[in-house]
């Protein structure tokens, strides 16, 4: 295997060299605990301030509304469990969707066991939430609407502004899991009426193990992780200074280059979709064709199973992902693919290709070529394809 073509940028991204350069001094040199009194600690403190400002700027928030966490998962847990706990006197009803990331879904399921009631909204065949259904599901005891900004599997971007308006109109707190959207599409917490927003560093060429939760000023959200007085007494634990610095740098780079990168990526994405559709039959595009993340391509290939597709691509140096159960060791294929109405056997044959701004057209051409061969090979092996062909005759 000579060259790697990495098309799994929704899973994690390569740390930007420039981001790493900004982080470096905070490992060995400026290691002071930012909470300390002495002056060498101020190096760390200043670095955190700058990072917080960069992050705040990237979503139109105030500096004091940004809280650093360990990643998107912690942010989701904190937002949802925190609101559930704090607003329990108002009610125990939460609205979310069927296509959230497990960080939201499993947190909601945990809350269900604690006596909360969760409405899991349906989505249409493109993965879009229905605004009317959302509004209808609001009850007097609804305390939170948590709907993801963009879906991590199929890339569909939800109508966040409209959802924010509904939430505001009904005076309900609105959380969005923006882990996939942050740094990739424009986000403005005020224009979109977002009260809480989760994001993760490593999805935007930042470091792993760092993320943030945006908490609107007026929102009462208690600590989720208790202990020291860090993060204005809301998130305890010694600050991960290099991580925070890296997140700040990554946020800045992503936002400064967003427009240009998105334009390029959309072109690449649409080219890849077109080429796959031209070269392989019996496939289905998953997710909305245009309301989708600039870097996300997701197809189901009928009669074949995702994992064997992934391994075959890997043999050619292509890194991708699948919503197939086999990759996770569980039985059912991705809940997202089932929620957009795919039958199990088709859902098992999904392939997600997520591009980076460095992906080249040559790489995409190579991928399509390989994909064509692999699909043919796997279909030749498939009893489902055999049955299908025989039935056609």
């Amino acid at each position: 295997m000579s060259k790697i073509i990495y098309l799994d940028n929704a899973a994690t991204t390569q740390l930007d060299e420039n981001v790493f350069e900004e982080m470096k001094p905070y490992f060995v040199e400026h290691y002071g605990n930012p909470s300390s009194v002495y002056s060498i600690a101020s190096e760390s403190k200043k670095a955190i301030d700058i990072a917080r400002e960069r992050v705040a700027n990237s979503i139109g928030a105030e500096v004091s509304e940004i809280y650093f966490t360990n990643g998107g998962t912690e942010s989701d847990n904190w937002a949802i469990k925190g609101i559930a706990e704090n607003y329990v006197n108002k009610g125990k009803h939460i609205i979310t969707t069927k296509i959230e990331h497990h960080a939201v879904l499993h947190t909601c399921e945990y809350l269900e066991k604690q006596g909360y009631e969760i409405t899991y909204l349906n989505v249409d065949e493109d993965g879009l939430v229905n605004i009317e259904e959302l509004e209808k599901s609001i009850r007097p005891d609804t305390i939170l609407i948590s709907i993801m900004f963009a879906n991590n599997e199929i890339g569909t971007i939800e109508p966040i502004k409209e959802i924010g308006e509904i939430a505001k109109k009904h005076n309900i707190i609105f959380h969005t899991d923006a882990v996939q959207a942050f740094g990739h599409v424009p986000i403005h917490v005020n224009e979109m009426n977002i009260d809480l927003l989760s994001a993760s560093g490593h999805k935007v060429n930042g470091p792993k193990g760092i993320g943030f939760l945006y908490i609107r000023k007026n929102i009462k959200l208690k600590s989720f992780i208790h202990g020291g007085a860090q993060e204005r007494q809301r998130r305890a634990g010694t600050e991960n200074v290099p991580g925070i610095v890296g997140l700040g740098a990554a946020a800045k780079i992503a936002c400064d280059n967003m427009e240009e990168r998105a334009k390029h990526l959309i072109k690449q994405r649409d080219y890849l979709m077109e080429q796959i559709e031209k070269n392989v039959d019996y496939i289905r595009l998953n997710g909305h064709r245009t309301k989708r993340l600039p870097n996300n391509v997701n197809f189901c290939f009928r009669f074949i199973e995702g994992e064997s597709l992934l391994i075959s691509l890997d043999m050619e140096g292509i890194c991708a992902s699948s919503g197939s159960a086999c990759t996770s060791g569980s039985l059912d294929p991705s809940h997202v693919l089932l929620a957009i109405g795919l039958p199990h056997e088709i859902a098992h044959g999904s392939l997600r290709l997520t591009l980076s701004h460095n992906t080249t057209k040559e790489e995409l051409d190579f991928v399509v070529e390989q994909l064509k061969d692999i699909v043919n090979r796997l279909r030749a092996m498939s009893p489902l394809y055999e049955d299908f062909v025989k039935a056609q005759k």
Partner: protein
Amino acid sequence: MYTEKVMDHFKNPRNMGEIEDASGIGTVGNAKCGDIMRVFLKIEGDVIEDVKFKTFGCGAAVATSSMATELVKGKTVKEAMAVTNKAVMEALDGLPPVKVHCSLLAEEAIHAALWDYAQKHNIEIDGLKEPKADIGEHDSFEEI
């Protein structure tokens, strides 16, 4: 994730294909769970002269099908009956715990094809039971 043997059998599956005039054909698994195996047997006398498979499933599913067919090829029916999923796994130098069910499926696919052969020829094979219509309900792995 997989051993070299598994990867080898995935890349170069042995006995992949169909047998036109098969003595017995068995299909197990279901698409819902993401694994379907179909085994074709050509039995002459009491010996499995030829065997082919088709599989829809993950890497382990393909590899276990390939290995299971290898292990029964040329064997008598009785010998083939003695090929367990364990033997398949061992021959592949092991499988990840979440993939053990694939080896069971391979064993069951052979048995289902033998059952079909037995039905067609009106014979009884020692220790062979009627295959379940749907053996999809394998255990999910430990959840805490």
